[in-house]
């Protein structure tokens, strides 16, 4: 092979790969018979060099990187071949590590990635970014031999764990290593984890805030509704009580007024006798006594008139109304208690009920008294059946039937008496049913009761469909 042939080969290699410094042909005696390159090495004897012997034996040789005459890191590649004349010869070339550098820099290593080559003794064949300069020992342990690509986590004495990928290049002394700091590698994952944590946390807080707000709002609404209900119930109870007192007062006043009127007339007559009759005249002391009686009667009259005036506020006002509607209104006041105590209240209508002309307020009081009475007689979970039907053309019948404790025969006779109560220990005034009875009478109706101890009680009310109230007479 001529020097010109070698020169062509060298320029071809440089063009294709770059980094090739020189090339030489050595015959089987170790003499360099042809050389192309920057040095004068023609005729140099390599027969005692270990690489020459190894190449002859193995067929090829790749050296570690070393500093040559030019003080540039490079390595040597030698290949044995057989020439045309049948003799063995070796083609030897020197390659600059810029080739390696170019290859490694082509790797896309994000962040703190470091790619380099070491030999099997751990000497860096190219400079590393973090683990030492060229031909220095890298500051990492040499990974154990593996026939294929492997990865492992290396730990330096100080600092983060390093994720390392490496491969032993077969037929060469080289190990290619890629090293990344675990922290950097995990960075994006950590960021993602952190972001997820933040979002989850924020969502949690938002959910809790929304739940709290909604719950507070709902509880507020329920509380307000409860307050309104309690207030309405109190007002109704108050109206009920005032109506009772009014009726009681009116009854008393009316009953007292008649004897008072008689006293008035009799005393007046006495006064007249002393005034107009000669035989009684002249006794001023007696006249003064009679005057005192008359003025006292006047005082009593003022009081009874006031009482009657009080009763007048709760007087009857007849208007057409729907009985079932009134019952439903009253039930709305006791609905909560019924729910708490699981009491079932049902309204049954047996036939088409015409409009009733009656007093709404008094009917409300009647129904509330009867329903409250039934509730007090029942255990939790009882049931109250209210039946509304018309009888004939002019009567409505209402039946309030509970499955409570019932009333004994002896008590049943006295149940409508004022101040009779079986609930002495609780808040019973003993006026509820007597007032109810009175109200039914005032509306021109009648009321009766049927009861059996342990089975339940039924109150039956019959009301005229048209206004036939007592007060008209």
């Amino acid at each position, binding site marked *: 092979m001529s020097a010109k042939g070698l020169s062509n080969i060298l320029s071809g290699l440089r063009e294709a790969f770059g980094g090739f410094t020189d090339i030489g042909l050595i015959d089987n005696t170790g003499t360099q018979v042809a050389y192309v390159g920057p040095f004068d090495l023609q005729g140099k004897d390599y027969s005692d060099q270990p690489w020459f012997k190894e190449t002859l034996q193995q067929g090829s040789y790749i050296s570690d990187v070393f500093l040559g005459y030019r003080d540039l890191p490079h390595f040597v590649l030698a290949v044995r071949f057989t020439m045309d004349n049948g003799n063995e010869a070796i083609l030897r070339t020197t390659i600059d590590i810029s080739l390696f550098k170019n290859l490694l820099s082509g790797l896309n290593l994000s962040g703190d990635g470091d790619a380099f080559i070491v030999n099997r003794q751990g000497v860096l064949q190219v400079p590393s970014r973090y683990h030492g300069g060229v031909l220095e020992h890298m500051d990492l342990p040499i990974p154990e031999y593996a026939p294929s690509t492997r990865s492992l986590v290396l730990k330096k004495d100080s600092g983060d764990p390093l994720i390392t990928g490496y491969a032993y290049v077969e037929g060469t002394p080289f190990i290619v290593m890629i090293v990344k700091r675990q922290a950097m590698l995990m960075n994006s994952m950590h960021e993602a984890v952190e972001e997820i944590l933040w979002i989850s946390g924020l969502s949690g807080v938002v959910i809790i805030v929304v739940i709290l707000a909604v719950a507070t709002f709902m509880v507020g609404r329920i509380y307000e509704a409860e307050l309104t209900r309690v207030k309405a119930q109190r007002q109704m109870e108050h109206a009920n009580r005032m109506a009772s007192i009014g009726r009681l007062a009116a009854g008393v006043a009316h009953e007292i007024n008649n004897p008072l009127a*008689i006293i008035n007339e*009799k005393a007046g007559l006495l006064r007249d006798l002393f005034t107009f009759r000669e035989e009684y005249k002249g006794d001023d002391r007696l006249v003064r006594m009679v005057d005192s009686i008359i003025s006292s009667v006047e005082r009593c009259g003022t009081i009874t008139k006031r009482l009657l005036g009080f009763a007048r506020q709760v007087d009857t006002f007849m208007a057409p109304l729907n009985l079932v509607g009134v019952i439903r209104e009253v039930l709305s006041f006791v609905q909560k208690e019924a729910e708490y105590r699981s009491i079932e209240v049902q309204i049954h209508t047996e036939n088409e009920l015409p409009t009733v002309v009656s007093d709404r307020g008094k009917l409300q009081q009647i129904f509330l008294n009867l329903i409250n009475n039934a509730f007090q007689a029942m255990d939790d979970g009882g049931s109250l059946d209210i039946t509304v039907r018309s009888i004939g053309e002019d009567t409505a019948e209402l039946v309030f039937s509970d499955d409570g404790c019932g009333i004994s025969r002896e008590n049943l006779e006295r149940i409508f008496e004022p101040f009779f109560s079986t609930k002495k220990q609780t808040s019973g005034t003993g006026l509820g049913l007597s007032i109810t009875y009175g109200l039914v009478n005032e509306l021109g109706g009648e009321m009766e009761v049927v009861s059996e101890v342990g089975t339940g009680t039924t109150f039956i009310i019959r009301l005229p469909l048209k206004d036939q109230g007592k007060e008209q007479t």
Partner: protein
Amino acid sequence: MKILLVDDEVELISALAERLSFRGIDADWADNGEDAIELARNNEYEVAVLDVKMPGMSGLELQERLEKIRPGMRYVFLSGHGSHQDFREGSAKASSYLMKPVNIDELIERVKQA
């Protein structure tokens, strides 16, 4: 002046009649509606003083009956109850409505005004 007094309380109405007579008013009295109608048939009264609430025939019913026998007779109602309804009806059908116990001078005044 001749008037008719009707109230179911005999003690009241008899004493009232006597007291009115002291004051120059000739008053007949009855303690029920039927007797009162009988008296009205036989006598001519300028004014009738009626109790609103009486057993059997009420003051308002009696007034209707008397109106047929003696058209033009005037009426004063008395009541021991004084409910709103009494007041409305009494006021509508009579010139006066008085609450028991009544003051004799006030009654005389109302009777004269009637």
